[in-house]
């Protein structure tokens, strides 16, 4: 829906209500960090609040949020030397359910591209072309990475799901 400039910012609130939670969940699964997800999605909406030229605000916010989260994760990888067995979500994931933490742990074993592909395609039902836009790659790459991720994720989650 094209953005309409209104003084009461109704469009922004509507956009927030519709997209905030899904974007946060997608970023949480992609980055493994509730903090990064929260900051990126909030910042994306803050930037959207200052824009008046967005033809597709929802797509724009998704894209900006993924850009910001990706950069933050890259910065963390550079700035913070985590031990190999460190859980990136451990410091700020206490409010998440055990099942979600299991999922994040399984996703953490994937490469970022695999994780992004399987999260967006399988987790959120996005077409590969749309996922490719968010991940700055090609639809073919998304399909291949999602396939590989599916296999690895299935292996990682099988013992959990089949446990009595």
């Amino acid at each position: 829906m094209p953005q309409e400039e209104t003084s009461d910012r109704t469009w922004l609130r509507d956009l927030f209500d519709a997209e905030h939670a899904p974007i946060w969940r997608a970023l949480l699964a992609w980055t493994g960090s509730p903090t990064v997800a929260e900051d990126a999605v909030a910042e994306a909406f803050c930037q959207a609040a200052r824009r008046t030229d967005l033809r597709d605000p929802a797509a724009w916010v998704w894209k900006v949020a993924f850009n910001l989260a990706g950069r933050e994760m890259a910065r963390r990888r550079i700035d913070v030397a985590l031990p190999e067995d460190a859980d990136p979500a451990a410091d700020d994931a206490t409010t998440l359910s055990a099942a979600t933490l299991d999922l994040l742990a399984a996703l953490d074993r994937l490469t970022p591209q695999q994780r992004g592909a399987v999260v967006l395609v399988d987790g959120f039902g996005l077409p590969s072309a749309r996922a490719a836009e968010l991940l700055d790659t090609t639809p073919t790459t998304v399909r291949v990475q999602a396939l590989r991720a599916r296999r690895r994720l299935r292996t990682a989650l099988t013992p959990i799901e089949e446990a009595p």
Partner: protein
Amino acid sequence: MTTTDPFAPLHAEVPPPGAWARVAAAASEAEPGYLVDLTGRRRRPVGQWMAVAAAVVLVALAGVALRGGSDPDPLVPIGPCDLGGIAVDGLDPQPIPVDATRTVVPSSLGPVGPVSAFRAREGAVVVELFVGDFDVDAFFRVTAPPDNEIVPRDGVGTGGPHPHPAPGCTTIAAQAAGGTSEANAEVINRIVAALGES
């Protein structure tokens, strides 16, 4: 293995509260007189430069319109800017593609610099032009952060406060004789040619 959707727990998670308050505050603070960088932080008042910066933004928006409307990617490189004697107005106003992932963004010192720099996509090549009465060859050099001390991210460079919120960019510091449009354009064109050959 069961057929349970492994992402079901994720969809049951609820984002932490408070995000809307932050967004609403940002919307109310989006007032004229400040430049806002990529991270959303408000930069110094631009005062008399506001009109110039607004003109540059309009050029960028016009470029977006010519490309078929607002792009989901907000990082639209912009070309010409002319401020304080540092002019690159001899350049093509459209982005200068080097390849699919690298885009040359001519920048400049002063308030216009951050405007163009913050529109640089990650991986872009940002050309920082420095004015001076020097020989182009002597001052043509190519460096990349973090070795480039001239334009540190969010730091203070030789030209004064100069936020550069585009991590992953390669910054090319170039200095053209006299800072004329022709000299700067020549430097930019040589950089583009060199990148294209690399």
